[in-house]
């Protein structure tokens, strides 16, 4: 397809600008020639061509509304349309963030109640809604841990990260000035307790644990893990990326987590927008409440207001109050489902994941064969040994069957990993058809491996040369 720049033609435009209803001034005089630019080389396209350009681009893109999207750890559930309509209400989109609190009582009530709902669902003392995405929430959470020790006058330079963790965990630790130490998993896929015992000292600020972990397995020894971390004065950080597995079944606060960050675009059904916006609320235990980012919402007798008057805060992690419009969608989701609907969603998500796991087990290696939570992790080892077909080939072949591939090559401790997260919004028929496709590909890998390696065969472009893209980077088109 042509680039928008390639269909540009001088003299065309889509959006016009109103004639001035105030006197026109000489811009050279009021601004100064030296401060003005000489060139403005944006695309010049007529409205019909602009609409066709982007509409045709959209047709080259796969989303949940087009088909099954079992991208592990990303929780690509259906994004309800009512939430989009609600978020588009002018009362929510139109208000300036510097509006005084009197203008924004609806927004403030919504944010306040959202925090309360999240406290109830996750068993935490307080939440902040300021972080803009999950990794941003991680950063805020780790900052609060740092501040906690700083205020106690303790220097704890390191943080423990399991080998199954998302890459954002060690990166968030590092962006907060911590050294990270990798904690091993045991043969069951859980935390290696002995290793944890040996690493957990008074130099360690805490452990960043994803539970269920990225193998889709619930940490059976969670009580012991929390006890070991706390016994040395450390804090237990929970990565809530996999929260879709336990809503209504257990609460991180009850499991003794001190911090947990969420991803509203995963668990609470807000669309991911092709990469964002997300929203990354962070919940904390009583011990960390004073360190929450500012401003925070204060409920007065019958009104709500913002307050920055919390002297122990870590400060701000972004301007204004967070990805408000994303939070509106998640709030709408919570209100429309209620406790019952949220719990049902968890149950169906876990049922769907286990159903796929059982159906595919005969055809693909399953390194950790036990009941999984919301996702399961297979290995393509058998296919590699049989015919040299790799997980990446299987993933690309799935595209030809009309599916988005699972997450591949993650977690790192499983060779040739593929991580399947079906979510609760998929029907048995969809899962059956997907499993049939996976089984057909397993067969094809034996009989006609080249066909799998050539996949995808049905897309506008075939496999792309990523090495070339990195070796000779072209990230900004030039005329």
């Amino acid at each position, binding site marked *: 397809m042509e680039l928008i720049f390639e269909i540009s033609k001088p003299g065309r435009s889509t959006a016009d600008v109103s004639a001035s209803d105030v006197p026109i001034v000489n811009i050279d005089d009021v601004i100064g020639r030296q401060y003005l630019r000489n060139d403005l080389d944006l695309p010049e396209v007529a409205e019909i061509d602009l609409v066709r350009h982007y509409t045709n681009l959209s047709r080259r893109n796969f989303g949940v509304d087009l088909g099954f999207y079992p991208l592990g750890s990303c929780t690509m559930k259906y994004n309800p349309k009512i939430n989009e309509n609600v978020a588009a209400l002018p009362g929510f989109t139109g208000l300036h963030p510097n509006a005084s609190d009197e203008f924004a009582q609806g927004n403030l009530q919504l944010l306040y109640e959202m925090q309360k709902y999240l406290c109830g669902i996750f068993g935490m003392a307080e939440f902040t809604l300021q972080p803009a995405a999950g990794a941003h929430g991680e950063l805020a959470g780790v900052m609060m841990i740092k501040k906690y020790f700083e205020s106690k006058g303790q220097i704890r330079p390191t943080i423990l990260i399991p080998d199954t963790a998302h890459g954002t965990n060690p990166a968030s630790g590092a962006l907060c000035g911590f050294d990270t130490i990798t904690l091993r998993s045991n043969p069951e896929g859980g935390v290696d307790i002995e290793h944890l015992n040996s690493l957990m000292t008074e130099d360690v600020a805490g452990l960043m644990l994803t539970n269920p972990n990225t193998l889709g397995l619930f940490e059976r020894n969670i009580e012991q893990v929390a006890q070991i971390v706390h016994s040395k004065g450390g804090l237990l950080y929970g990565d809530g990326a996999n929260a879709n597995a336990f809503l209504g079944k257990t609460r991180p606060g009850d499991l003794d987590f001190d911090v947990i960050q969420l991803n509203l675009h995963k668990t609470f059904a807000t669309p991911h927008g092709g990469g964002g916006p997300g929203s990354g609320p962070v919940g904390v235990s009583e011990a960390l409440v004073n360190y929450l980012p500012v401003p925070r919402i204060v409920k007065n007798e019958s009104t709500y207001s913002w307050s920055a008057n919390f002297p122990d805060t870590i400060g701000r992690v972004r301007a204004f109050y967070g990805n408000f419009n994303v939070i509106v969608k998640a709030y709408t989701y919570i209100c429309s*489902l209620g406790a019952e609907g949220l719990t049902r969603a968890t149950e169906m998500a876990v049922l769907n994941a286990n159903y796929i796991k059982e159906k595919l087990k005969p055809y693909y290696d399953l390194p950790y064969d036990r009941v999984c939570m919301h996702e399961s992790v297979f290995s393509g080892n058998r296919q590699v040994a049989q015919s040299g077909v790799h997980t990446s080939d299987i993933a690309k072949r799935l595209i030809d069957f009309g599916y988005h591939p699972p997450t591949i090559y993650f977690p790192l401790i499983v060779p040739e990993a593929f991580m399947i997260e079906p979510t609760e919004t998929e029907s048995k028929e969809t899962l059956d058809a997907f499993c049939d496709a996976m089984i057909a590909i397993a067969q094809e890998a034996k009989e006609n491996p080249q066909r799998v390696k050539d996949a995808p065969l049905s897309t506008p472009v075939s496999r792309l040369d990523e090495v070339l893209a990195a070796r000779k980077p072209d990230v900004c088109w030039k005329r």
Partner: protein
Amino acid sequence: MNYCPHTSDDIAQMQEAIGIGSIEELFADIPQKFRLKQMPDMPASLSEQETLGLMQAMSRKNIMPRVTLTGAGAYAHFIPAVVGHIVGRAEFYTAYTPYQAEISQGVLQAIYEYQAMIAHLTGTEIANASMYDGASALAEAAVLCAKTSNRSRIVVARSVHPQYRQVLQTYCWANGYTISEIPYVANGQLDVAAMQRALDDSVAAIVVQSPNFFGCIEDIAPMADAAHACGALLIAGFTDGTSLGILKPAGACDADFVVGEGQSFGNPLNYGGPYLGVFAAREKFLRRIPGRLAGATVDKNGKRGFVLTLQTREQHIRREKATSNICSNEALCALAAGVYLAALGKNLGKLAALNIYKTQYFKNKLLQLDGFKEVFSAPVYNEFALRCPNARAVNEKLRAEGMIGAYDLQKDYPELDNTLLFCATEMLSKDDMDHVVEIVK
């Protein structure tokens, strides 16, 4: 509402296939003592109609202003209809990050095009696929400068947006970096002499904003020279992105990084978010910058296509050695920005000019009021500071008329008592401005 399509028959068949007698068996790994009996303090579920009713009522508890006179980091602009229609396409908004390039060419190409438009607008060679917002983009640029130079001090202009400085402070504290603030001079621009005095070989970066928080346009080139002379880098922000339609961008004045808030490009005010952080830089920093990058390449038949590239900078590959922890960005907001900029084209310059006309009119009109005085004499884009007899009373009068008043600068600058920062975009009509002056009189 219930979005699970499972019938009781489906559930029974699936349980049988798994070999369980009840759903509860699937949760056996959660120790019994931690099992939740009932989610506390939750409402009952609602129908779609009830949900809409509830949320409409909630949205009506907000007061929709007749006029908004504040900018200060977020700007009311007209959004052409095409923007909403494009970002409302489910192929875009229900997608995840484009990890699988062959079925994500739409997002990847749109982001590639966005990156090119941003690089051009900011006068740099490269731009990433977006950061969370202007403030976090600025903070990450500063951390990058310190990390890669092994220097630990950031010099920041006091005339940078106060909230951006707070975010910078948070990120710097977490990494053990210190911050020195540089004052402004009487005309509202940076105190270049004070900046010179603050510079030494411990300084990783100078952070400025142009237009600055007071609306004043800064002279960037000497700042870049001063930074480079001591081995530091220049990070230049901006306020309203539409200013780039007419003002010489910092990248053309030798800034190393140009970062700022991209909300003005086709994104609603949304009470502060989601917005998008614009992050642009000189080409030599390509392998060190944070965030996603869409890059052009070819497929095995030689056909042009796009991928996420230079991923070895990123957390999912490099983990603790990554250039940042960022994963999700603001892709859909960046798509809106790309569509907006393509829709405006050269008209972005006309729009910026219109903002200047409105601003000049509004400022001169307000200056006719008793006791209103211009605070800074440097040229401004679409914001300006005025000292008035009683700032609080002015905003109170406006509020009583359903208007969101100007930004009270005393909150962040104690020396600027009774000083209001007004903003005039194309959304303010002459009648609006005349009416404001009548109310305030």
